[in-house]
Every structure is written in structure tokens, then in C-alpha cells.
């Protein structure tokens, strides 16, 4: 039987009884022809020859414009879609400078090591025909004995912000050639630098510019970004320079159809919809069976593995081979990832299930269909993920499958909002005191700080004096000097992810007499480790289940999880105990019935056990306990305490009130991102009490609930906190928009068709109780009156 075309398949989805009624919206994006421009007259002939050798005989208009602007000395940011040839926008000016000025140096920054490797490979292809290009990556993977050679030889260095921060700037005296002659700094994937990471990068760039000033260079910044609302503003805030924006792409695009799909309600009473993972897997399987190259985006690592094993099972051929579908996520080893990337480019791999790791510009060739299993959290990510499917000519499709979370339900039922809202502004706050002070330490470590020297937009004098009081700085002559034995960059991570990774080691072969070889099969970062690789956990790599035998996490140990391949039909989900306690109150607002405060809190979390969940049916088939250490962060939060009098008026039962408040916490947490333009995971929520921080003990939800019910003084408190240590300003923003958030919460509850509560409003009724929705509604009515 002939294979169906993409268009035929989409028509089927739209018209079949089964799926048609669940498609809430379709949007068509018509194709666009290319706009060409000739090679600029000043472009080095050797470079033109090299381009012709690679089959490039003219440029797209945006590439031409980028070269022109760079040549005139402007800082610039190029904002064009995936696969529009944006790398030439920075490669042309940089290679030109290396060819024409022998001494000049160029620095490329990528958010990941993999992207730097990818880009190096592309540059090397182009550079084959060019003289004197000495291009190297310099990052955590560069062997110690090769580093000296890179420092001495390279005229083009590809690295990442973390390495610049901890490995290059604090050792700038070993990079004199680079800093004396730095002509261009290229920052790719600019949109990745939002929130904490971006706020850090802005400060790293302030340090970079100081060092360049010291050695007498003033580099030009060339940046590239996916579509966000404010690329120019972000570029200017990151670099502290005024920046030209190139937003019009001259590259052609093909026809594209975007569908929104809301899984059918299977239990109207409980408001339960068909599981979105199953629905997403079903669509992906349909595409793959027609040999349509497909990428599936999952919103978590676990969801990636569940989707992958379902899809693999469905597309397995007669001999049981399902290799045409691969998984891709952070934690897979670089080799495995490179293999998947190559497979996708060559066509050996037809489908890939990925986390947002593939949102970034890794070259995986062109795919025909993208299935978004769940709303990716931001409009910008939505377009980036959807943009992974699409060729310069021909058709492509994107399909968004909504989960039952409130945000997803809002988006899938308001397609005009989804398609009409500009992508989020990428927000950074380089002046976040926590972040700024840390980089000020690094800056002073690198080079004594002259009185009155600028560092970003604000006056840093108060911080300097503060740090002198703490004994880290010392003022002598007209300068501040570093007076501590520590190396400050070592203690400052630019990401929430720490560098302390666990390796996952497969010991399956160990018991069998032969091979004693132990194989590292994955890496897990410290923050996720306790929730993913606790003893007896099922850890999945490309859909294959492994059981964790031992986890070595103590300070004096190598961080390793020993796993063994097993045959099981379940996966595991961690149960954690938690606690949030107030450390410092910064502001409050009282209204009739509610005291809302904003300040600093301590959040502690501890994995205490796990549930076993069966594949397919997702039923709970067992549980277990684990003993692991507690993880703590200090961050900022907004918290709400409803006045006892109002609580008493709403219900006389503590049971009901606790359920209602917990439902309210769930609702507010999931709606807040609409106002704060952040990801749901950037926030955390918890229903606790006001026990002082020193006395608090973590508890699972049932434990915390029992504690509230038995407490002498009944003071349930809803905490909404910033997930990033130190906070990036989300809690303060939340505190300010609280009235609007409460109003939107009430609207959502009133509009939700479920009877007792569902994942789209206060949470699933089986977890939250039958009275939660009513209580939460009554509370909100009073609070917004």
C-alpha cells in the first residue's frame, strides 16, 4: 500500500470522528520565496571561493545586511528562524577579520558544549580552503595538556559562558594574545540567556569588557537569536552596548500547518481527559508509519522516556527493530547524542523524542512534523519547537497536544491567545544583588577595581564597602583589591544546574563471569539526581529500563549510580517531602481577609520514597522507601495567609479548608506564568504553616496536612516561590500582580466545566477531595470582592 502524504494524513486527523472534534484550532502559514543578495564587494575573494566550493553562490538578504553592519562597526543581533542560514551572518565577518588582520582574535560563545562542537565542524568545512585559521573549542572537555596549546595557538576560540567565567577570565594573563586583539565576540542562541542564566551572562560580559579594556581592545558583539519579543533589548542588556537588529529573513520557508489538539474527556465527573502522552504517541506513530520524519517534544526527562518506549513499541518492525526512533535529552552521553544527530541528518533515524535540549540550534537536518506533547511553558519555546519541523520548500506540520494542566487548557481553548500573543520578552535582571555581588567578587579577583569604575548601570560603591566589611575586599590607593584565599568563580554556577554530575554506570555484565567492563550510560545533574536515581528507581535510557542498585552521593565519594538492566513493566516516580519556612519579611499587603507577604524563605526537599507506575495503564502497582539527604535552597517567595475569621466563615471543617487552600495553591501556581511570562517550573508552591525556619521538619503532603489539622494554632499559608536559588524577581512580581492573579483564578474556576475539581483548575479530585473546588471558589469570591 502506498504511503500517505503529510497532507493526506492531516486531512484524516481533521475529519475523522475520533480526532476531528478534539482539534481546537488550525492555522496555516503560507510559504515564502527567498530574497537574494550578491556577495559584498569587500568580502575577501578567498572567502568567496570557499563559499562557492560549498555550493553557496549568493547570500540571503539578511546575511548580506549582517556583513555590512558588522563592517561598519555596529554591534548586531540577527533574529531569524531556524534553518535560515544565520551562522553565515557571524561567520562571514569573523573569518574576514581573521583573513585580513593576522593578529585579530575571535571568541564564540554557545550555551552548550555540543553546540560549540557542532559549530566548529561547520567552520572547519568552510575553512578547509582558507589559510591560517586556527580554531579550537576550549571547555570542560578540553584535556588539560591540550589547553596550553589552544591558548597559544587559537585565533578563533569556541567556548561557553561557564568556561569563560571560571576558566578564562580569572586566568586572563594566560590569554594576553586573545584579549589584546579581540575583534569579535559571537553569542549564538541569545534567547537561551533569559532569567538566571542571562542575568549571570550579562555580568560575565561586563567582566569580559573590563579585561578587554585593560589590554586595550574593544570587541564588537555579533549575536543570533530565535524569535523572542525583545531580541534587541535583550542584546543591549546583555552587552551594555547599543545594538542593531536584523529581523527580516531572506531565507525561503515552506508551507506549514499548525494544529491544536485537546485530548477527549473520558470521565466528565472527574474532569479526566485521555492521557496526553498516549495521544501524542499515537499521532507520532501515525506520522512515522507513513515514513514522515517526526520530532516529538516532551516536557520532562521522564515524559521523554515514557513517550519513547510507547512509540518504539508501536513502530517495531517484524524483526523487532525500533531503531528508527531514538531518544534525546540532557543526561545522555555526548557520543550517544552525536549518534542520534548524525542519524537524523542522514535519514537513518526517522523519529526522535526529545526534551527542549533539541530546541537549541543543533544541526539535525530537516524534519516534516513536530509533535509538542504539552505546552512548552512559553510562546517562544512553542515556536522554536514547532520550527524544528519545516523545510525551505515543501510542507510541514506542527501539532500541539495539551495536557490537563491549567496553563495547557487555557492555551488549547484560547488559540487566538496562543497564536496571537507575541513571544515572551526574555527577561534578565543583571542587577539582582545576589548575582551582581558574586560577579563583582570575580571582577575584583581578576583585576583591582578602580574607584568610580562603572560595572553595569548601577552604582556598586555600596557593595564594594559591604564586601570590604566582610573581609573580601581591601581598599588601597585608588583601588579595591581581592583579599581572600578563595577562587570566587568556583563557588558561582551560572545555571541552576550545578556542575557536580552523577554518572550512571551499567553493571549488568558484572555478575556474568566474562566482561568486567562497567559502562557509563548517562549523566544526571546534582539537582535532579535524588529525584531520578534513588536506590530501586527505574532509570530509563532510550526507553530501556535500568534499576538503580546503589547511589553514591557522600562528599568523599565519586558521584555514581550503579544500575542493572531489568525487565519490568513499570517506571518509578519519586515521592518527596518538603517544607517552606520564612527567613525574612520584606513587604506586606493586608486586605480584608488576607495577609500577603513577600520575602526570603528556606525551601527544603527530600526524596523519601517512590511509586511504581505501570506502563500504558499508568496504574499504581507498588511503592518503596528511600533514605536520602535533604536538599535546601534559600530563595524569594510570596505567601498568603487567609484571616482566621474568614476561614471560619467559609467552613468549620479544617479538613475542607486545607483541601480548598491546597487547590488554591495549585491554581495560582499554574496560572501565575501567564502574568510573569515564565515557565511553570520556574515557580514552586506549597501549603504549609508559619513554623519558624529553625524548627521546621520536611513532610510529605499527607504529613503536612495532618500537621495542619492537628495544629494548636491553625495558620495555613500558601507559598509561591522562585525555584532559582536567590530568586530572579519572580516572587516580587507575583506579589505585585496578586489581585489580578486572584481574579483570574476565580474566572478559571467558574469557567471550568468539571464538577469537583480537575487537573485544569484546582487539581485532580482524587488527590484534592470533593470539596476543594467549592471552598476555593468561595474563598476567592471573598478575597476578590
Amino acid at each position, binding site marked *: 500500500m502506498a504511503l500517505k502524504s503529510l497532507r493526506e494524513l492531516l486531512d484524516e486527523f481533521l475529519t475523522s470522528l475520533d480526532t476531528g472534534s478534539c482539534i481546537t484550532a488550525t492555522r496555516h502559514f503560507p510559504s515564502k520565496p527567498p530574497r537574494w543578495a550578491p556577495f559584498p564587494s569587500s568580502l575577501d575573494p578567498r572567502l568567496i571561493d570557499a563559499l562557492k566550493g560549498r555550493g553557496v553562490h549568493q547570500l540571503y538578504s539578511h546575511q548580506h545586511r549582517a556583513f555590512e553592519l558588522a563592517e561598519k562597526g555596529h554591534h548586531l543581533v540577527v533574529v531569524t528562524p531556524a534553518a535560515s542560514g544565520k551562522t553565515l551572518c557571524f561567520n562571514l565577518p569573523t573569518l574576514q577579520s581573521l583573513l585580513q588582520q593576522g593578529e585579530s582574535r575571535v571568541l564564540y560563545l554557545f550555551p552548550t558544549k555540543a553546540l560549540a562542537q557542532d559549530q566548529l565542524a561547520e567552520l572547519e568545512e568552510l575553512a578547509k580552503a582558507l589559510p591560517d585559521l586556527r580554531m579550537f573549542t576550549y571547555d570542560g572537555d578540553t584535556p588539560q595538556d591540550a589547553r596550553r596549546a589552544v591558548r597559544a595557538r587559537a585565533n578563533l576560540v569556541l567556548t561557553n559562558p561557564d568556561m569563560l567565567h571560571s576558566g578564562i577570565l*580569572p*586566568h*586572563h*594573563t*594566560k590569554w*594576553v594574545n586573545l584579549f589584546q586583539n579581540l575583534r569579535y565576540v559571537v553569542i549564538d542562541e541569545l534567547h537561551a540567556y533569559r532569567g538566571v542564566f542571562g542575568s549571570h551572562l550579562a555580568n560575565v560580559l561586563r567582566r569580559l569588557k573590563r579585561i578587554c579594556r585593560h589590554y586595550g581592545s574593544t570587541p564588537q558583539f555579533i549575536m543570533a537569536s530565535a524569535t523572542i519579543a525583545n531580541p534587541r533589548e535583550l542584546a543591549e542588556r546583555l552587552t551594555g552596548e547599543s545594538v542593531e537588529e536584523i529581523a527580516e529573513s531572506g531565507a525561503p520557508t515552506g508551507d506549514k500547518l499548525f494544529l491544536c489538539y485537546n485530548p477527549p474527556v473520558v470521565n466528565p465527573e472527574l474532569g479526566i481527559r485521555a492521557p496526553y502522552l498516549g495521544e501524542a504517541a499515537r499521532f507520532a506513530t501515525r506520522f512515522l508509519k507513513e515514513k514522515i520524519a517526526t520530532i516529538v517534544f516532551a516536557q520532562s526527562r521522564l515524559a521523554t522516556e515514557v513517550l519513547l518506549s510507547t512509540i518504539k513499541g508501536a513502530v517495531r518492525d517484524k524483526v523487532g527493530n525500533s531503531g528508527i526512533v531514538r531518544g534525546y535529552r540532557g543526561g545522555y552521553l555526548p557520543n550517544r547524542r552525536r549518534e542520534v544527530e548524525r542519524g537524523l541528518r542522514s535519514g537513518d533515524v526517522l523519529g526522535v523524542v526529545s526534551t527542549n535540549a533539541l530546541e537549541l540550534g543543533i544541526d539535525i537536518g530537516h524534519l516534516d512534523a513536530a509533535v509538542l506533547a504539552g505546552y512548552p511553558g512559553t510562546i517562544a519555546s512553542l515556536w522554536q519547537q514547532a520550527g524544528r519541523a519545516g523545510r525551505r520548500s515543501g510542507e510541514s506540520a506542527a501539532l500541539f497536544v495539551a495536557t490537563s494542566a491549567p496553563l495547557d487548557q487555557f492555551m488549547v481553548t484560547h488559540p487566538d491567545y496562543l497564536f496571537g500573543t507575541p513571544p515572551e520578552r526574555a527577561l534578565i535582571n543583571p542587577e539582582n544583588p545576589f548575582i551582581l555581588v558574586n560577579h563583582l567578587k570575580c571582577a*575584583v*579577583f*581578576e*583585576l*583591582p577595581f578602580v574607584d568610580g569604575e562603572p560595572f553595569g548601570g548601577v552604582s556598586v560603591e555600596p557593595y564594594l564597602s559591604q564586601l570590604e566589611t566582610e*573581609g573580601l575586599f*581591601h581598599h*588601597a*590607593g*585608588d*583601588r579595591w*583589591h*581581592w*583579599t*581572600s*584565599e*578563595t*577562587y*570566587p*568563580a568556583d563557588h558561582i554556577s551560572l545555571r541552576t544546574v550545578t556542575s557536580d554530575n552523577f554518572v550512571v554506570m551499567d553493571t549488568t555484565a558484572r555478575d556474568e563471569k566474562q566482561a568486567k567492563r562497567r559502562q557509563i550510560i548517562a549523566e544526571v545533574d546534582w539537582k535532579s539526581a535524588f529525584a531520578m536515581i534513588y536506590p530501586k528507581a527505574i532509570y530509563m535510557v532510550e526507553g530501556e529500563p535500568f534499576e538503580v542498585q546503589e547511589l553514591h552521593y557522600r562528599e568523599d565519594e565519586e558521584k555514581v549510580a550503579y544500575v542493572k538492566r531489568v525487565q519490568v513493566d513499570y517506571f518509578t516516580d519519586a515521592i518527596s517531602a518538603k517544607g517552606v519556612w520564612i527567613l525574612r519579611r520584606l513587604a506586606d499587603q493586608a486586605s480584608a481577609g488576607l495577609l500577603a507577604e513577600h520575602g526570603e524563605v528556606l525551601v527544603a526537599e527530600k526524596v523519601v520514597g517512590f511509586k511504581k507506575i505501570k506502563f500504558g495503564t499508568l496504574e499504581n502497582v507498588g511503592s518503596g522507601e528511600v533514605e536520602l539527604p535533604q536538599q535546601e535552597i534559600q530563595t524569594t517567595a510570596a505567601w498568603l495567609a487567609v484571616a482566621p475569621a474568614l476561614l471560619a466563615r467559609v467552613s468549620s471543617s479544617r479538613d475542607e479548608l486545607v483541601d480548598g487552600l491546597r487547590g488554591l495553591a495549585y491554581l495560582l501556581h499554574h496560572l501565575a506564568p501567564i502574568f510573569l511570562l515564565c515557565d511553570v517550573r520556574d515557580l514552586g508552591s506549597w501549603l504549609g504553616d508559619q513554623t519558624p525556619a529553625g524548627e521546621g521538619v520536611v513532610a510529605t503532603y499527607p504529613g503536612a496536612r495532618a500537621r495542619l489539622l492537628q495544629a494548636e494554632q491553625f495558620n495555613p499559608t500558601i507559598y509561591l516561590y522562585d525555584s532559582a536559588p536567590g530568586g530572579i524577581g519572580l516572587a516580587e512580581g507575583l506579589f505585585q500582580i496578586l489581585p489580578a492573579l486572584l481574579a483570574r483564578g476565580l474566572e478559571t474556576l467558574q469557567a471550568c466545566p468539571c464538577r469537583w475539581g480537575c487537573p485544569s483548575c484546582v487539581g485532580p479530585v482524587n488527590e484534592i477531595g470533593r470539596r476543594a473546588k467549592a471552598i476555593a471558589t468561595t474563598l476567592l469570591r471573598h478575597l476578590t470582592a
Partner: protein
Amino acid sequence: MALSVAELVGGREEVTSHGRLLVARREYQLHVRHGELPLRSALEAPPDVLKLLSRQPQPEPAPRRLLYLDTETTGLAGGTGTYAFLVGAGFFDGDRFVLAQYFMRDLDEEPALISAMAALLADFDGVVTYNGRGFDLPLLETRFVLSRRPWPQHLSHLDLLPPARRLWSSRLPDCRLGTIEARVLGLERVDDVPGALIPSLYFHYLRSRRAEALQPVFEHNRLDVLSLVTLTGWVARALADPEGLDLTPEEYVGLGRLWEGADEERGAQFYHEALRQGLPSPHRERLLLRLGRRAKREGRWPEALAFWNEAIASASGFDLRPWEEIAKYHEHWRRDLAAAHGVAARALALAEAEGAQEAAQASLAHRLSRLTRRSGLAIR
């Protein structure tokens, strides 16, 4: 009234092209002993020994053209945020040894200190340090670059840490300079300030301006520089002619290792002296194997066999390595499979009798079965 640093350490202000700093100078007569040896001993170092220690092909520095250098720093972290606030530099000048300590009274005197160091280094051909390769010199180079000055390229460098490791790592608990002073040079420091405390003492001084706590830091630095001198004297004398130094067998091995490569014959002499003086197990077997391997490389088979047999006799437990060497000799060199088989069989029997490690037994069994197959011999 608190005393100033200058008063406490007997220094005075000196002027450079880049500002002022404090310099404390002392002079010593050459017969002054630091430990058991006099300072003069460093001047007696023969040229070939200095060349060996500086591990450089260029002409060896004359003893009077060497600067003995030790820095006190604000930490060990590396990078550009660590200062060398006190640099002790000693050199021979006529019939005196001069020890000058260059000190930053505050961190803004660094340009003056670097300027003074640049002028001083220009007057010498080489520097002597302890762990300078890993620490003092890269740090000073960083400070030079930060001050936008070129680091002098003409200097040869005698880092005494690598030879100290060769000589004493097997015998002493560690190779810190203090340990070697006590156990080798015969010097006991009294009330010495621990090195780890030095950065915080300096930071305390910067903030409080109370100089008392710095006095022991100057003293510590001064003793370090003097120890560099007599340690150079000791090592040079041991390498040249250790008569009268009363060396241990392990030290003879170390001297052999130092000479080996540069002067095989002298290396061999020291090795044989080590054996003659009763080098104990397991160092003894390690040396015999080393000598055996060298004899084998040079085709001196009878000697090699003698070393291996001696290693077997000397080992307290079963040692696989010499047996393997002998078996390989018979199999590959003499092509006498029967002899090789005999050796392997004897070794396996012995290994079993002595309860040697499983891996060793397995390796021998494997060898034996291969030899059996090749030679067509039946297992007896």
C-alpha cells in the same frame, strides 16, 4: 605605641620607578651554618651537577649567578587574584650572602615590588626555588603580565622539589621543605608560623595595620630562602660525591634516578651502592627489575638474568614480574620453549604454594598453557 613593620623587621623604604616599598636586607658570612651545612656549601656545587638540576640544555649557571627565591602569597587558589606580598631573594655577593625581602606594605605597592623584582632578576642567570615550577614562578609571571611587564625569558630554573621527591618520597612522610630541613638538613624551626596561616596574617595586618603578627612571616620566609641555599649545597654534594654524608640506601637509589639519563655510569654506581648498603624490600626488587629491564634493553642478558634471579630471591612473597621476564627471555630470545615452559611451571607451582594473587596465577596458567600448546609438551 605599636611598632611599624620597618621597625619590626629592620627594613627600610626603597624607591623604584613605580613607587616605594619596604625592603629588609640581611647579610650573612659564608661559614654561617643553616642546619649542619654552611651557606658556602652551595658555592661548591660543580657545574655538571647544576646543569643536571636545572634540566636545561643551555650552559649551566655559575653558583654566584643564581638567585634563591621564595614568595609568601595571599593564597594557593591560582588565577589573577592571588598576590605575592613578600618575596625573599638571596644571592652571593663577594664574601657575603645577601638576603633581601621585598614587602608590599599595602596592595597598591605591587607595581613597586614588580619593578624591583624585574631589576633584580635582570642581574641573574637563574633562580633556585622549592616547587617554583608549580607555584612561585607562574604566580610571579601572572603578576608581571598584570603589571604589563614582560617576564624575563633568560632565566634558568633549579626547582629543588623534583630532586627532593626522588631522594626522599619513599622514606619521609611528605616532601615539604620543613620536613626535609628537620630530617635531612638537621634544622629544627622554633615557633615557626604554619604556611597555611600566612595569608590571613597578612589580611589581618592590612585591615588593622598592626604589624606584630608579620614578624614571624618574615622569619619564616627568611628561613625558607636559607634552606634553599643549604639544600642546594646538600643535593649538589650528594650528587657529586656523597662521601661523608651518611646516606641511606633509598637516597642512593634517588641519586641514581637523578643521574640516570644524563650520565648512565654514575647512575649505575649509585644503584649498586644502594644494593650494597642493603636496600630493603620492596624497593630492592623494584630497583633490581629496573636494572634488569635496562640490561635487557641493552642486550646484556647474563646481567639481566642475574638481576631477575636476585629479585626472585629477595622478594618476601611471590613476585610475578621477574619470573615473566625470565620466561620471556627463554621463549623469545633463546627460542627455547622447553626452558620457558620449565620456568613458567616452576613459577606457577611456587605461586600456588605461596598463595599469590589470583590474577598472577591466572596469568601464569595462561602462559603455561600457551607454551604447552606451542611446544607440544604435555602437562606433567
